């Protein structure tokens, strides 16, 4: 959670399902975070490079590329490699979760999601 007199933390949310995109953004804004939004992997990568968010909340099933591919490209670019990524997806296959957690993402959240848990996880990933 952003504290008074501390710089406002910036979070980029990338999800092509606009309901979840805007729900996540609404929850984060209510907590005092500055929120950037994108609906494709390419837009997400561009927003990460330009905006240098403190955290990226990233859907896996994007229309132009997998969120895992977005994560891989973020990690390859020195300008964005340090941005922690929280994967945010309806998918729960064991092999995918294994791959996702091995990809360097800091966390994995299954949608539909618990909003209180989501905000606690975001706060924790921003601290570490």
């Amino acid at each position, binding site marked *: 959670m952003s504290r008074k007199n501390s710089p406002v933390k910036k979070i980029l949310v990338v999800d092509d399902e606009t309901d979840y995109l805007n729900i996540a953004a*609404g929850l984060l804004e209510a907590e005092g975070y500055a929120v950037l939004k994108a609906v494709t992997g390419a837009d997400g990568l561009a927003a990460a490079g330009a905006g240098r968010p403190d955290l990226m909340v990233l859907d896996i099933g994007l229309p132009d590329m997998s969120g895992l591919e977005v994560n891989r490209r973020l990690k390859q670019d020195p300008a964005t490699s340090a941005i922690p990524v929280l994967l945010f997806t309806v998918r*729960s296959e064991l092999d995918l979760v*294994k791959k996702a*957690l091995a990809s360097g993402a800091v966390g994995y959240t299954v949608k539909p999601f*618990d909003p209180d848990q989501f905000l606690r996880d975001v706060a924790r990933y921003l601290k570490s």
Partner: protein
Amino acid sequence: MTPLKKIKAVVVSPRPDIAALAGRSLPGLNPRVYTGAAGFISAAVSAPPDLAVVDMDLPDISGRDLLLVLRRNAKTSGMLIAAVSWGAKSATEVSAVLDTGADEYFILPKDSALVGPRLANLLAARALRGGDAGAREEKPLKIGRLEVNVVSRTAALKGRELSLTALEFDMLLYFSRNSGRVVSRGTLVQQVWKNELGVNLRSVDKRIEVLRKKLADSGVNISTVFGLGYIFKA
């Protein structure tokens, strides 16, 4: 009963005291310890354990999400899973973890003395079934004053059966299985209406209104979240 040393057990927790407690609770168990979900899932994909003691507060995925993942996947759906948490939890939180698929839930340190006997009971019950996980029995879901019975496809409020259409029951069941979670309208169209042609978001909103009225006095609410989704909780 299978000797303890032949039972493959794991503890998934970043807390050494939880790993130590699980190890002490059943002498001979010698569980393998993982400090996060990543290492555990990597191993479980190829060789699922018989018993997993899973901390609900993991660094890389919420314990409840990990339970969902394990129960939804054929390789791990039959695993015995004991959830653990450190510190007080509300009845609603405990209920949500058990409804998500935990076979047991220990709140530590209060329940420390119960871990050994209850894990032993779980293992003994499994052994009586010949070590076969079998199909997990779908128990009725209890939220607030409501009981949702998956097998009979009925819902009851204080013992009185509610009059629900098939669609309304499917919506209630989906919400009950995802209580406390924000569900987008798009997810409801996919999961409840199965992307039926002609269904739009306004249809979803209307059905929610009808279901809300039928659930009045049930102790559960379906709240709207930013006009974009719904959350069902007691």
